[in-house]
């Protein structure tokens, strides 16, 4: 059974239709990349999967682990195992990353019928994960994303992903605004999480991220549709020729 299966998904914001019939299935253990020009609806796809308010699904369905998630709120989807690394991670003044993550982790554990994590264990988890991602120790004591540079914000999101261990990871333009060193750190973090039970949907405009996170499947997205699907070589082809062929076709 696919980890997530999207069938004929149509979605709109207000009167504007953005997704015009998406079909996509991600098997556990695979990495799918979605590439496409700006405005093609890539971010909408990730937000619709995560359940963000303001999008109306007019047709089709999303099955996560075989269950239709249409009626689930964003936090319920998150607790079920869906994680979205944001294109623009949000600042939450006064709330330390540590407090924030503890709340998130315990919400998941509670939903799974597990006990809250012990403070010592949590601290160790934080420290080990921070070290693995080459993040400064004080990061967890700073308010979530406040005063972080663009690169730090992205790394902090991958840090959260590593701690929360979701089964489906959505990466929305995670490479935007990253220099090459930060890109490497982020990619290593993602690669470390690759496992047989976990699936990835990597959304990007540029091919360079896919040099570091090598996808199993590449989809070309244009005007709310997947217009072509192929293997990793498709990304290289796009890098060379651009999206012009596809946008015209769409």
């Amino acid at each position, binding site marked *: 059974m696919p980890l997530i299966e999207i069938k004929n998904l149509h979605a709109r914001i207000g009167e504007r239709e953005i997704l015009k019939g998406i079909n996509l299935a991600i098997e556990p253990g695979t990495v799918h990349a979605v590439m496409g020009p700006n405005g093609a609806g890539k971010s909408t796809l990730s937000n619709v999967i995560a359940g963000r308010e303001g999008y109306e699904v007019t047709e089709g369905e999303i099955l996560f682990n075989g269950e239709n998630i249409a009626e689930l709120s964003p*936090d319920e989807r998150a607790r079920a195992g869906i*994680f979205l690394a944001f294109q623009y991670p949000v600042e939450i003044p006064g709330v330390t990353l540590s407090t924030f993550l503890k709340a998130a982790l315990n919400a998941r554990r509670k939903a799974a019928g597990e006990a809250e994590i012990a403070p010592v264990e949590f601290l160790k988890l934080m420290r080990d994960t921070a070290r693995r991602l080459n993040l400064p120790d004080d990061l967890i004591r700073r308010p979530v994303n406040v005063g972080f540079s663009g690169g730090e914000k992205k790394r902090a999101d991958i840090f959260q992903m590593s701690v929360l261990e979701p089964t489906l990871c959505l990466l929305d333009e995670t490479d935007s605004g990253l220099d090459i060193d930060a890109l490497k750190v982020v990619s290593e973090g993602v690669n470390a999480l690759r496992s047989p039970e976990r699936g990835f949907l990597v959304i990007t405009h540029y091919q360079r991220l896919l040099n570091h996170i090598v996808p199993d499947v590449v989809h070309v997205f244009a005007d709310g549709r997947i217009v072509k699907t192929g293997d990793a070589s498709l990304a290289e082809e796009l890098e060379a020729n651009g999206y012009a062929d596809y946008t015209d076709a769409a």
Partner: protein
Amino acid sequence: MAISEQTVETVADLGRYKYGFSTDIESDKAPKGLTEDTIRFISAKKNEPAWLLEWRLGAFRAWKEMPEPEWAKLDYPPIDYQDAYYYAAPRQKPKLKSLDEVDPELLRTYEKLGIPLKEQAKLAGVEGADEMASGMPGVAVDAVFDSVSVATTYKAKLREMGVLFMSISEAVQEFPDLVQKYLGSVVPPGDNFFACLNSAVFTDGSFVLVPKGLRCPMELSTYFRINEKNTGQFERTLIVAEEGSYVSYLEGCTAPQRDEHQLHAAVVELVALDDAEIKYSTVQNWYPGDESGKGGIYNFVTKRAACRGRNSKVSWTQVETGSAITWKYPSCILQGDNSQGEFYSVAITNNRQQADTGTKMIHIGKNTRSRIVSKGISAGRAEQTYRGLVRVLPRAEGARNFTQCDSLLIGDRSAAHTVPYIESRNPGAQLEHEATTSRISDDQMYYCQQRGIDPEEAVALIVNGFCRDVLQTLPMEFAVEAQKLVGISLEGSVG
């Protein structure tokens, strides 16, 4: 979902006031109403010296001539001051041998107030309880029920060090000269309508004196509770920190859930002499009324500190989550050169609650400094005003003030106002004031939810973050309680 939309669908029920129990203890009440006879009754009941009765009567006569203040942005029906009891005391009990003999009702009350067992024993008047409660440093507690201080813990231990910590009634008996010297010296009897009323009818409260050079090794704490029906509570607190001393004082308040409004008009006076420091923290959680505005405490409180000595310092921290109406401006008169005043405030209003709260910092001495950090959160149909005065007098060369005043609105029916008065008459003074108004953004809510945190918890988390600068100034024991209270107070503010 946007918070505003969620609020539209606000869960009706906020019958979740955690402290809304009432204790059925036989009490001793003065007849209903307020006349000179009521005051004579109170004074006689407490066996007070003649000067104090005269002081009370003077205040009462002045009060009768005073108009009730109308400048605050508060809307409430006229209060009938004759339709309340001004004195209610739990009946005197004989000394008890162990906790088993204590009225279980009373114990349950303490338990619900979160008072540790050993302190409960002491409060209930169990002999030898002081020995039980030996592991210093702890928290010394004075519990005031309705009008009367029930008991004070650690009194003897503190006394050995020279710290006086007792109910003000006891202090009047034991140390009349001290009381006479300081009572009304910061908040004179005729200061304002509610302080004047309090001066006439105050029934109990705490008295603290920390002697020269002593750093009080434990937190002093008072729990105030209004228990009787139709009873006003008028406690009076007086804290004197002598030269070079330090004390941290905590105040907690709860009241049972009742359909009618109850009046609370307290006065707190602080005196800090040379190099002395007082830290005064309040977690005010009086019953706020239900979601339609029925019931709840009317909280009209005058709190003022005189930083009389050079280098003296007073720090007010308040977490105001309760009461139907809050009218409260803990202030500092910075008389001594180099003295410092601080005001840290979190005020949360939900449903139909109204609060008009802030501070006054009066800079008189040279190089006096003040700092104001106010965080107001308004949800439901609540309305809240920050009202603050910073006044620099001509002699206050080198005075400094910094004010940060932030409001957070939850839902499109709530309101937040900011009214600072900034008056400078010294060119060497530097005053800065910043204020912002915002709401929890949809992006922040979505981000939290995407990490698995449900909307109600997300609001509590974000609001706690918003208040962090203030909550951090609370003593540890209170900080945890206050954080939880922030969440509880906002329950029902998102759908």
